[in-house]
């Protein structure tokens, strides 16, 4: 075993050098994230109408995000495991607090205002819920028993329900799926999965009843955007025009008319993918998708290399949640999915989700770079 450790040390030192090792960075993943951030800034420069202010603000956010990533990467994963139940408990209490006294913004209550700092508890639950589920399941042998699955489901459902009540369907969906990914990765039987999917399918009409009017509207508009071409359908129609008019090679950087002439709404934030598609065309999109695929693949590889159940489950589910972000955003912008307000990770302008994402990758880095210490 000692030789093993020596070999792995030597191996890592040769590949990444002492700097990266001391920073606890996985270089391929870091390169992927930096590449994505750079692409994001380039597209944002165009989408914002060449507004340097926007670029500076986004760069500051990215710097803060990478700082958080560096900090979390240094913390050994067993600490995360120890803190998880406490953070989860605090998160649920904060979600309740948001419901009770949350400030009203855009007709939905999502924020807690601490004077200088505005905090969105639902955002951190995207990372905390899978960790909590993983922590609970890792206590027992896998695959989990039915009772454990039921208990884990409760861990998922409580925050999800609280977030739906805010109401923030997009985040609730992501929080729930991040938890469900842990369950799926833990090796629960496919028969159980199939029966749950069956039950949810039958329950869908009941869920419809609980949706807010604007949420129903979004789903209806998704089903037929031309129904409401000047209202909610306008987003999708204009976004499809932007993407389609980009063609194979695009209109060129800074030359997208849909975004620059303001036909495309939210072109710096949720619909930035359409700007990229318009200006860089199909080729540019393939490049972006390749970067995302690389990050997801590397993340999944890291999860398989993790040395205990908690680490494996957390790493895998965080990576898959990241992919859900990517897929839901692109699906929405290309008209495959209904409009839910999710940003394109690391490309869209905006801070909250960027910080969450970086935190998740920090945990991933930590899991990967603290392996050899655990192996002894």
């Amino acid at each position: 075993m000692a030789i093993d450790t020596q070999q792995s040390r030597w191996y890592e030192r040769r590949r990444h050098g002492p700097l990266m090792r001391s920073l606890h960075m996985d270089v391929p993943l870091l390169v992927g994230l930096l590449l994505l951030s750079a692409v994001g800034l380039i597209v944002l420069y165009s989408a914002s109408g060449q507004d340097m202010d926007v670029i500076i603000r986004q760069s500051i956010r990215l710097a803060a995000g990478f700082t958080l990533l560096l900090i979390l990467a240094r913390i050994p994963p067993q600490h995360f495991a120890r803190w998880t139940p406490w953070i989860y408990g605090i998160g649920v209490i904060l979600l309740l607090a948001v419901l009770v006294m949350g400030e009203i913004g855009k007709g939905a209550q999502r924020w807690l205002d601490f004077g200088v700092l505005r905090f969105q508890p639902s955002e951190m639950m995207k990372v905390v819920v899978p960790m909590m589920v993983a922590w609970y399941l890792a206590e027992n042998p896998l695959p989990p028993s039915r009772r454990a699955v039921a208990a884990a489901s409760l861990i998922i459902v409580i925050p999800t329900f609280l977030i739906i009540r805010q109401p923030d369907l997009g985040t609730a969906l992501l929080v729930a799926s991040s938890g469900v990914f842990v369950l799926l990765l833990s090796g629960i039987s496919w028969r159980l999965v199939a029966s749950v999917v069956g039950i949810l399918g039958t329950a869908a009409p009941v869920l419809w009843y609980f949706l807010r009017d604007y949420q129903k509207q979004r789903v209806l508009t998704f089903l037929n955007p031309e129904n409401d071409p000047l209202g909610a359908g306008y987003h999708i129609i204009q976004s499809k025009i932007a993407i389609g008019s980009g063609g194979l090679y695009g209109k060129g950087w800074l030359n997208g008319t849909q975004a620059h002439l303001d036909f495309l709404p939210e072109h710096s934030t949720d619909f930035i993918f359409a700007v990229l598609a318009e200006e860089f065309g199909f080729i540019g999109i393939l490049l972006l998708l390749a970067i995302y695929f690389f990050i997801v693949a590397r993340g999944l590889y890291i999860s398989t290399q993790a040395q205990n159940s908690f680490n494996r489950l957390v790493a895998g589910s965080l990576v898959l949640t990241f992919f859900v972000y990517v897929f839901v955003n692109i699906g929405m912008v290309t008209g495959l999915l209904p409009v839910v307000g999710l940003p394109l990770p690391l490309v869209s302008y905006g801070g909250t989700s960027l910080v969450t994402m970086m935190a998740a990758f920090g945990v991933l880095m930590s899991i990967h770079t603290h392996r050899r210490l655990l192996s002894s």
Partner: protein
Amino acid sequence: MQQRTPLKDHLRETHSFTSRVMIALVCVGLLLGVVVARLVYLQILSHEHFATLSEKNRVNIVPVPPTRGLIYDRNGVLLAQNLPSFSLEVIPEQTDNLEATLAGLRKLITISDDDLDSFRKRLQQKRPFESIPLRFRLSEEEVARFAINRYRFPGVDIQARLTRDYPFGKIASHTIGYVGRINENELNELDPSNYSGTTHVGKTGVEKSYENILHGTVGYQHEESNARGRVLRVLQRIPPKPGENLYLTIDMDLQMVAEQSMEGKRGALVAINPKTGEVLAMASVPGVNPNLFVNGISSVQYKDLQDDIDQPLFNRALTGQYPPGSTIKPFMALAGLEYKEVTTDTQVLCQGSYSLPGDTHRYRDWKRGGHGFTNVTSAIVHSCDVYFYQLAHDLGVDRIYKYLSYFGLGKKTGIDLPGELSGLLPSREWKRAARHEVWYPGETLISGIGQGYNLVTPLQLAEATAILANHGTILQPHIVHATQVSNSSNIVPESPMPEGKVPIAAPKNWDTVISAMKDVVNTPTGTAYRVGRDAPYLIAGKTGTAQVFGVKQNERYKAQDVEERLRDHALFIAFAPVDDPEIAIAVVVENGGHGGSAAGPIARAVMDRYFSSKPAL
């Protein structure tokens, strides 16, 4: 027991996890495949479609209206021009809230309730995304005040437009006509593409009849605009072709003399050059300032004009129909001579009245005692009614109808102006069709002195006079003299009109009548002696008095006893110089009384101006 002390099988867990991750990776790959397939569909297969939509989003094709042609008189005096003026315009589709926008604008710029009313009226008949004017003729200060606040009013902008302006105001207003905003009916009739940028169209007069020449051809501009419709730049421009300028046959100098001498009266004057058919002056008094109509007249103002007892909106020269009265007598005399019912030697004894054989009804002469023995010349000079009763009786209605038709009575002259009326030259057929009655012999008599059913327009009367002056040669009366392509000095005269001819039995008959008309004006006993006195050129003329008010059999008509508007219309026709006529005039003064004294001096004033060397304007 086992559950309480679970054993972890690390190897199994690792295997299970790895296989699940592989499944996840496959799912990720499949979903990315779906995304790629979707993008292939959007960006490659449907690229053309979306590229077109994107282009349509961005590029608007905006019509550029042509500049309307100018109107000049025959000497190049400007009668209708285009003045730049700033108007405040709103594209309702692009405002956030129309009512709030209007309220905000009212705080900034004076907008009267009237402006708002007409704005709302236009709002109802507008085309989509049309810019609707809210206020016209903004002052420089108002333009500046709005410019500072423009950002607060999306969809509102200042437009520099050309506004039609008529510098002479009501002078010649009926002839020139005016333009006004296109209304709903016109919208359906006009060529939608050529008028796509045009807001005004000719409503009356030359502005209407020469609309297609004055208007020009629309141009187009490809504009790039953003989602809020602000134009960012012009990509391509096909310039409009401006309308052609018109030169009228009108001489503004004569026109002003005519209208000034008719100031305060109601009536019309038409002066024609018999050699060419050119209308030298065409006045209808009172006139109306056409500038009122250009950007929409308020309903109150319009109602006032409509209800005005003097009817300023009514073009008397073209649509006023009056009994010709005694002005018909030269034509009757000519008919008698040409049909050989009378000769210059034929004498009729006038004793103040005439009765048909076997009838007791007395047809009175205007002179109570009668004129004694009259021949054709003295009958014209003294305007003896009895002579013409006899002549009409001898000619019969059919021949009167036939002969007077040669002079264009009873039908439109076909002048290049809209709305002309045809007057009325009665015949047996007409009476049967219109009144379902037979023609009575007594009606022939009163037709013979231009009363009864007879109606003429001043234009017809002037044209008939021109034909007489011209010894039977008929020239189409017209109002446009030449056209000119904008920015070119090349003035293109209108092609000459086809000539017609009145059949002539003996040219000396015409000399007889013309000579008698010369005596009307130039002999002391003539009914219009004062009109021709001291003229440096020789005038021929004929007075006429048309009854408005029926006088009973045994009563006498006394002007001072009759209310002003029931008094007789005064008519006068004349041409000069007698030997080689250059100008033929018909004047009607409504309720003016006697033709020689009320209408004659007006004709004389116009002729004097015509024959004097014209001072430069």
